């Protein structure tokens, strides 16, 4: 982490990240619209620009179609076009922007965190723990990744940083057993929130998906309604494979919401728009850095405007 980055507020950083990523879209659109009318070729170029934000061919087509119906063959300014796009995108995103609400009566409110390898699960857990601790809740973490080297140590560091107990068992233990223990312990210790980390797994690895489903079943032995949230953590750089990730994790463990990480990088995260359309799952938060405070509520307006380079 470079020091000048640390000093910047999350907001400017989020914006900076997103607008750094949208620069190309913006300059593209500007170029197109100062030069000519909204003709076929222009629309095609616009579509390419949307696709290069990972919106996907279908969503891009649809947005372009809406645009062409409204404004086709008329002289429009680039700003008008960007605003139209931003509004369209915001409308799609609005219904999914929902934070996680901790149900105080549950004790513990159990949150299972899953996703493909390296997407940012463990880091996000640390950030969530920090957030809820700051609200005065008592939080407990469970080191359900018993597979990856030093995964337990990594979560332990997050436990120290957030002053949160971490339930651990030795490397190689059945993760379902860790989850089972953690649930029991959280009930006994009267924690408000229990967040369970899991090993990264690719959704096409059936045996690993079964392992995850088993964790859920075992949790439900003690708490039939749990996990109360099942979060899928998506890497913001992901492409069209995100569709298959969401579909499969949802089918296997009933994902209730998404967190998208690494939006501080050059990736534009346009996939969020496509996923919102297709799955309508809440986007609870976005990750905008590696530090403990780098988790933000998902704001559709800022996201859409940043994507389109509007302030």
């Amino acid at each position, binding site marked *: 982490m470079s020091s*000048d980055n640390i000093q910047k507020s999350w907001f400017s950083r989020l914006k900076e990240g997103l607008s750094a990523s949208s620069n190309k879209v913006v300059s593209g659109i500007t170029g197109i619209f100062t030069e000519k009318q909204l003709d076929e070729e222009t629309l095609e170029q616009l579509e390419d620009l949307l696709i290069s934000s990972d919106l996907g061919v279908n969503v891009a087509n649809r947005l372009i179609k809406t645009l062409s119906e409204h404004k086709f063959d008329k002289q429009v300014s680039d700003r008008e076009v960007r605003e139209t796009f931003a509004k369209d995108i915001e409308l799609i995103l609005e219904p999914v922007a929902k934070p996680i609400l901790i149900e105080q009566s549950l004790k513990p409110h159990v949150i299972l965190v899953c996703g493909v390898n390296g997407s940012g699960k463990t880091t996000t857990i640390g950030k969530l723990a920090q957030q809820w601790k700051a609200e005065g809740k008592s939080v407990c973490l469970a080191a359900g990744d018993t597979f990856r080297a030093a995964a337990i140590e990594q979560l332990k560091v997050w436990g120290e940083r957030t002053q949160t107990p971490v339930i651990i068992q030795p490397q190689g233990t059945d993760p379902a057993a860790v989850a089972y223990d953690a649930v029991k312990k959280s009930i006994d210790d009267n924690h408000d929130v229990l967040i369970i980390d899991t090993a990264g797994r690719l959704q096409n690895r059936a*045996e690993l998906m079964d392992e995850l489903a088993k964790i859920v079943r075992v949790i439900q032995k003690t708490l039939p309604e749990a996990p109360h949230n099942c979060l899928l953590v998506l890497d913001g750089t992901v492409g069209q494979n995100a569709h298959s990730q969401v579909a499969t994790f949802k089918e296997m463990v009933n994902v209730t919401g998404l967190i998208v990480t*690494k939006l501080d*990088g*050059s*990736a534009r995260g346009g996939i969020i728009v496509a996923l919102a359309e297709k799955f309508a799952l809440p986007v609870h938060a976005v990750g905008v850095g590696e530090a403990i405070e780098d988790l933000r509520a998902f704001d559709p307006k800022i996201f859409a405007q940043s994507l389109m380079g509007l302030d």
Partner: protein
Amino acid sequence: MFDALSDRLGNVFDRLKGKGSLSESDVNAAMREVRIALLEADVAVEVVKSFIDGVRERAVGQEVTKSVTPGQQVIKIVNDNLIGMLGKEAAWIELNAVPPVPILMIGLQGSGKTTTAAKIASRLTRRDKKKVMMASLDVTRPAAREQLRVLGEQIDVSTLPMAEGETAVSIAKRAMAASRLQGYDVVILDTAGRVTIDQGLMDEIKQISEITNPAEKILVADALTGQDAVTTAKNFHQNVGVTGIVLTRMDGDSRGGAALSMRSVTGVPIKAVGTGEKLENLEDFHPERVAGRILGMGDVVSLVEKAAETIEVKEAEKIALKMQKGQFDFNDMLTQLQQVSKMGGLGGVLAMLPGVGKLQKQMASAGVDDKSIARQVAIIQSMTAQERKSPKLLNASRKRRVASGSGTTAQEINRLLKQQMEMARMMKKVGKMGGLKGLGSLFGGGDPIQPDLGQGSNLRIPEGLINQPGQNFPGLPGLPKFPTKR
């Protein structure tokens, strides 16, 4: 099964039947479909553009030979060009420098640098007989250095001892000095993940690179990456001059367009692919497999060609469609089993699918062979048409009849029934997920055996634990147990 592009092109070329050569307008129509296929595979927009232009030029005016359809012809041209662009020959780490030869691992957060560092170290040690040291310059991620240390222990490769309060740059210097002093051939420098718009961190990696002067600067990138692959590859390349790319998570079911994007904007070779979390899951890069994967068709050319020779493609497509709907009766099973035999038996089919070396061995040791397939074919052939359509009809007396008709036992029939049910269930899942995995059904396979692309092994077992027998492998009769746990 032969999905995506071939379907699309099939439609485009339906009206083209009987024409002698590919006209410009036909090719343009086809290129629209190719463009969509590539974009859906996450190939970056700008790369798709230049690719299409190249292919269009080559395709216009080509004679369509009688034995293939125009669609197949175009696919072949597209495929050949893809392979060309991905780079023809396999490349591996170059160690032409004075030892200790530094190798620098760079990339975005979580792309797989640390794991890949250990995989490369393991291969250099075991296969290339080099004395390797690894050093973690990652002072950012919690327990990053501990992670590398543990991985080093697993493969018996030494790691630079940790010290508190050092910067990445000072660790780099210490690693060079220590490996020189201790006579190592290679020193692998693992670095913290960084986003490329963080100029502070890019300056740091530049500095590390200048100080250590690595023989290889390996960009480790995730095969699940979308359009950002070009930006990331360009920026790392501009800042430090990447010498090679390793693409991780090729065991996933992404189409892997990032490979093409990164390769074409940097021009550097893809040196290997990661196909799992385990440290032996590193494979050579095979452009033809990745090309097929990007097109969504597996090893498209050999598979389609072979299939066209031996079976009706229509038949296969019909089955693929049924699979998607989750229908799978004994007629379907029979067709599949017969296809396997026609295509040169199990060995023949497997040879066409990438990344199945291990699978072949597993199957052989599990006694899945052409003989057991022949028995299954016999059983199904002894059923009536109705029984094949509705397996539920098979009561005890019918089973006895089928058993005596096929020279098998009632148990074998039961097993086959169970397998059919299992497969119908699987089909539904596979159909939903789409893709080549459907081929897994060719083997009556359930979960662990999916001849998915670039997949070395499905099995993840924590180092140090013995392969524990898992559940019985669904579907295949009389199989010994496979380890199904990692």
